[in-house]
């Protein structure tokens, strides 16, 4: 296994910037092999752009190319992608 490999946690900021939602806890199903994983657990590669790959079969789940003001996103490697959350934060401040 490639020691360079990162997981979806590494692109939490990028995903939130692009989707305006917390995505690492969203669950994606691979269109190739049907496995389901949270985005935080998928493999992430940085090439010219960002590539998300299924940790079970290795196929591409998504590609993201980010420019200044827009992003080009291909999610076709996901059969489904659900559970992205809007209210992602619980705050306790009782001091």
């Amino acid at each position, binding site marked *: *296994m*490639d020691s*360079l*490999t990162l997981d979806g946690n590494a692109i939490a900021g990028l995903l939130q910037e692009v989707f305006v939602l917390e995505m690492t806890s969203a669950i994606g199903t691979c269109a190739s092999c049907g496995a389901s994983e949270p985005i935080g657990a998928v*493999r992430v*590669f*940085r*090439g*010219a*752009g960002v*590539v998300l*790959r299924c940790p079970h079969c*290795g196929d*591409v789940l998504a*590609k993201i*190319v980010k*420019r200044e003001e827009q*992003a*080009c996103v*291909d999610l076709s490697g996901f059969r489904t992608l659900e559970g992205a959350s809007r209210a992602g934060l619980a705050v306790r401040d009782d001091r």
Partner: protein
Amino acid sequence: MSFVSRGFHGRRRSDADASRIPPGQYVTSDFPVLSAGPTPHRPLEQWDFSVSGETDEERVWTWEAFRALPSEEVTVDIHCVTKWSKLDTVWRGVSVDTLLEGVDTSAEHVIQYCDGGYTTNVPLEDVTGGKAWVVYEYDGEPLEPEHGGPARMLVPHLYFWKSAKWVRGLRLRVEDEPGFWEVNGYNNYGDPWKEQRYWGD
């Protein structure tokens, strides 16, 4: 750009001749490793290189046959779309002109395809006339897997995503066929001197 991090310079060479650096690029003395997928590890006895598609005869070379082809050492500057440039990189490999010598084709486009599934497209005229190589040595040593070994493309006049790592062949095509990144926002041609990074540039 408003905020500057006090005292931060990064690890760049600032003494490079500015005329060698395309717009928006920064020179590095590292060799960053970028990849669309895990490093393949194909044993040499299972490696071959093909020229196929719109041609009268498909050509295939085993590793031994490929290494027996005339090769040359070239020193070129390379420019990655992620903004780093590396000057005076030294490679050894086989010119694409050698691979296509005597090939009869009406193709105008070439698709590079690779172990791991990556593809990228270039016009045929951009890989002929001494502009491109299939290289297997970097800096005098066998090309390391993380940098594309056993062999990768070298097309230095375009952004480096057009120089596919782990290349296994060239497919000649009459029609253009946008590759892995070209279908997802990166420029179909990719001239760093015109800063053609993205669609519409």
